[in-house]
C-alpha cells in the first residue's frame, strides 16, 4: 500500500505522553496501523491529529478505540475527523460477529440429542408424508378431474424418456462387464456357455432394476428435491395452499406416480440392453452366435426372474420419488438447505433401495422364486 500513515510517541513539557498521527488514516492503512498500535506498551495521554491528511471511519475507529482504551485527549482534529469519530463513538456497542458456539463436550451431547430427535422426527415425518400422500391419492381417485395429467405426462418425459440414453449406455456397459468377467471365471471350468445364464438372470432379476433405480435416484430424486425445495424457499408452495391447490396433489402425486410407472419400463429396457451388451460380447469374445444366445436365454432364464425385477421396480421408483419430494418439502431457510436436502434425498433413496433389495432377495428365494 502506498498510502502512508505513521505515528510517533513523545513526552511534552508536562511529561504527558503524546501520540502524533501522520498521513492518511483510512481502511488501507488501518491493518498495519492497528498492528503497530497493539504493540504499544505505554499509557498515552494525548492523541495529536495535526499531521493527519485524511481520515475515514476505519481510521476514526482506530483513533476512537485508542482514546477509549487510554482515556486520552484528542487534539487538533479536523472537523471531518471529529464528525467521523463522533459517528463511530456513538456506534460503539459490544457484540459478537460470529454465531455463538458451544464448548465441545456440550456440543457433542447437543448434536447427539439433535440427531436422535431428528431421526425420530424423520421417521414420524415419513409416515405422515406417506399418509397424506395416500389421502390425496384417494381424493384424486374419487375426483379424477382434479388430477394433473399434464404434470404427470411431463414427469413421464423427465423421469423416463430423457433417461433412456444414459440408462441405455450404462446397462450396455454393465452387460458387457458381467459377460466378460463371468466368461473369464467360467472358462476355468470350460463352462463359458453358462455366461448366458449369468447375464440373463442377473440383469433381469437384480442389476437392471437396481442400477436403473440408482440412476433415477441421482437424476430425478435429486431434481424433485431441488425443485420442490426451491419452490418452498420462494413461497410458491405456500401460494399454492392459499389458492386452494394442495401441494401434495399438484407437486408430489404426479412425481411419485411418474416414478412408479416409469421405473418398470426403464428397468425392463435396462435389462434388455444389458442382455444385448452381453450377447455382443459373447459373440465377439466367446464365439457364441447371437441366435444361440437368444435361444439359450429363453431356456435358462425362468419367467419368475422377470417378475422379480418388475415387482421391485415400482417399489424402488416410489422410494426415489418419495424421498426426493419429502426432503424437498422439508426445505426451509436458505439456499444451503436446498443442497443439503437434495443430497439427503439421494443418499436416503439409494440406501433404502439397497436395503429393500436385500430384503426382496431373501423373500423371493423363500417363496420359491430362487
Amino acid at each position, binding site marked *: *500500500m*502506498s*498510502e502512508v500513515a505513521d505515528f510517533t510517541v513523545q513526552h511534552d513539557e508536562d511529561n504527558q505522553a503524546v501520540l502524533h498521527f501522520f498521513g*492518511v488514516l*483510512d*481502511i*488501507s492503512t*488501518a*491493518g*498495519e496501523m*492497528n*498492528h503497530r498500535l497493539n504493540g504499544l506498551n505505554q499509557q498515552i495521554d494525548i492523541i495529536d491529529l495535526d499531521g493527519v491528511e*485524511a481520515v*475515514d*471511519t*476505519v481510521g476514526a*475507529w*482506530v483513533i476512537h*478505540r485508542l482514546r477509549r482504551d487510554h482515556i486520552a485527549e484528542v487534539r487538533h482534529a479536523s472537523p*471531518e475527523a471529529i*464528525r*467521523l469519530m463522533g*459517528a*463511530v463513538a*456513538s*456506534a*460503539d*456497542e*459490544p*457484540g*459478537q*460477529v*460470529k*454465531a*455463538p458456539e458451544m464448548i465441545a463436550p456440550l456440543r457433542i451431547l447437543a448434536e447427539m440429542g439433535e440427531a436422535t430427535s431428528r431421526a425420530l422426527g424423520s421417521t414420524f415425518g415419513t409416515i405422515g408424508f406417506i399418509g397424506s400422500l395416500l389421502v390425496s391419492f384417494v381424493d384424486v381417485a374419487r375426483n379424477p378431474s382434479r388430477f394433473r395429467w399434464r404434470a404427470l405426462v411431463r414427469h413421464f418425459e423427465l423421469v423416463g424418456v430423457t433417461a433412456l440414453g444414459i440408462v441405455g449406455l450404462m446397462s450396455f456397459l454393465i452387460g458387457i462387464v458381467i459377460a466378460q468377467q463371468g466368461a473369464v471365471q467360467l472358462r476355468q471350468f470350460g463352462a463359458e456357455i453358462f455366461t448366458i445364464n449369468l447375464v440373463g438372470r442377473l440383469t433381469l432379476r437384480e442389476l437392471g432394476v437396481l442400477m436403473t433405480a440408482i440412476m433415477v435416484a441421482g437424476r430425478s430424486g435429486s431434481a424433485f428435491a431441488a425443485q420442490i425445495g426451491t419452490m418452498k424457499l420462494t413461497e410458491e408452495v405456500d401460494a399454492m395452499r392459499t389458492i386452494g391447490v394442495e401441494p401434495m396433489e399438484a407437486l408430489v402425486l404426479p412425481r411419485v406416480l411418474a416414478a412408479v410407472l416409469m421405473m418398470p419400463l426403464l428397468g425392463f429396457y435396462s435389462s434388455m440392453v444389458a442382455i444385448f451388451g452381453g450377447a455382443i460380447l459373447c459373440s465377439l469374445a466367446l464365439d457364441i452366435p447371437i441366435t444361440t444366445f437368444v435361444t439359450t436365454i429363453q431356456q435358462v432364464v425362468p419367467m419368475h426372474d422377470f417378475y422379480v425385477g418388475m415387482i421391485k421396480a415400482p417399489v424402488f421408483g416410489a422410494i426415489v420419488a418419495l424421498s426426493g419430494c419429502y426432503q424437498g418439502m422439508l426445505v426451509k*431457510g*436458505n*439456499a*444451503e438447505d436446498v443442497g443439503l436436502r437434495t443430497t439427503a434425498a439421494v443418499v436416503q433413496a439409494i440406501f433404502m433401495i439397497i436395503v429393500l433389495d436385500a430384503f426382496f432377495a431373501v423373500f423371493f428365494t423363500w417363496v420359491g422364486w430362487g
Partner: protein
Amino acid sequence: MSEESQALATDLPDIGEPIITIRGLRNAFGEQVVHENLDLDVRRGEIIGVVGGSGTGKSVLMRSIIGLQKPNAGEITVLGRNVCGGDERYLGIRRRWGVLFQGGALFSTLTVGENVTVPMKEFYPDISQQLRHEIALYKIVLSGLPADAANKYPSQLSGGMKKRAGLARALALDPDLLFLDEPTAGLDPIGAAAFDELTRELQQTLGLTVFLITHDLDTLYEICDRVAVLADQKVIGVGTIEELLATDHPWIQEYFNGPRGRAAKSAQMRAHPADYEI
C-alpha cells in the same frame, strides 16, 4: 498495485463535479432496446434519485455502472476510469463503491457480521480479524441495527433489518459511492422514513455520493438533491423536482402530479413549511 492505490486516493473530484459520467449508453436484450444514447452525470456529494416506469431500465442502468452488465455501446466513467471494457484499473475502483441490492442479497450462510467482513477480507486482508470484527460491529450499528443482530443469520431478520444489514455490507469499505436499488421498497412507511433519514445522515456524515433507484415519491421529496427521470430509453430530465415540473413531458407531469405525487408533496410541505413560503 501501489501506483494504482496512489491514484485512487487523489482522484476524487471536487464536491459538485461529476463523479460518474455516462455518454451514449446503449443496452439492448435481443430486439428489446432498453437504453439508447443515454447521457447522465452524477455529481460528487449529491443524492441522485433515479425514477422511471417499470421496465425503463433503472436497474439495468445501475448494473451497467457497476460493471455487472456490459453495455452494447457508450462510455461510462466512474472516478475518471472507464468501467466498460478495456480499463484494467476498473477492478481497483470496485472497492470505492458499495451496492445495496433490492432484496439485500446477503450471503445466507454467513451471519450479518460475517457478511460485513467479507469485502474487508477480500480487499484488505492485512486487517486483523479482531479489528475486522470491531469495524463490522460499528458499521452494523451505524446502519441502524442493534449490535446483537451481528451474530444472527439473514433468515432470522425481518425485511427492513435485512436492508439495513445489506447497507452495512455496502458501507464495509468506506466507499465514496453508494448504490441503492429501491431501498425502501417493501418497508412499512415508518421503516421507509427511518431508512430515508439514515441514508441522508450517513451521506452527510461519511461524505457519500448516493445513486438511488426508487419508486418512493416520499424518498424523492425528502432526501434527493436531484432526480433523473428515465423514459423513452434515455434520461429525459435531470434536476430538482421543481425543475422537472417546469418541463412539460407528460410522464413527468403524471408522475409528480398524480395523486401519489401530490400527496408526497403536501406531506413534504407540512414537514418543512419554511421551504415553501413564497
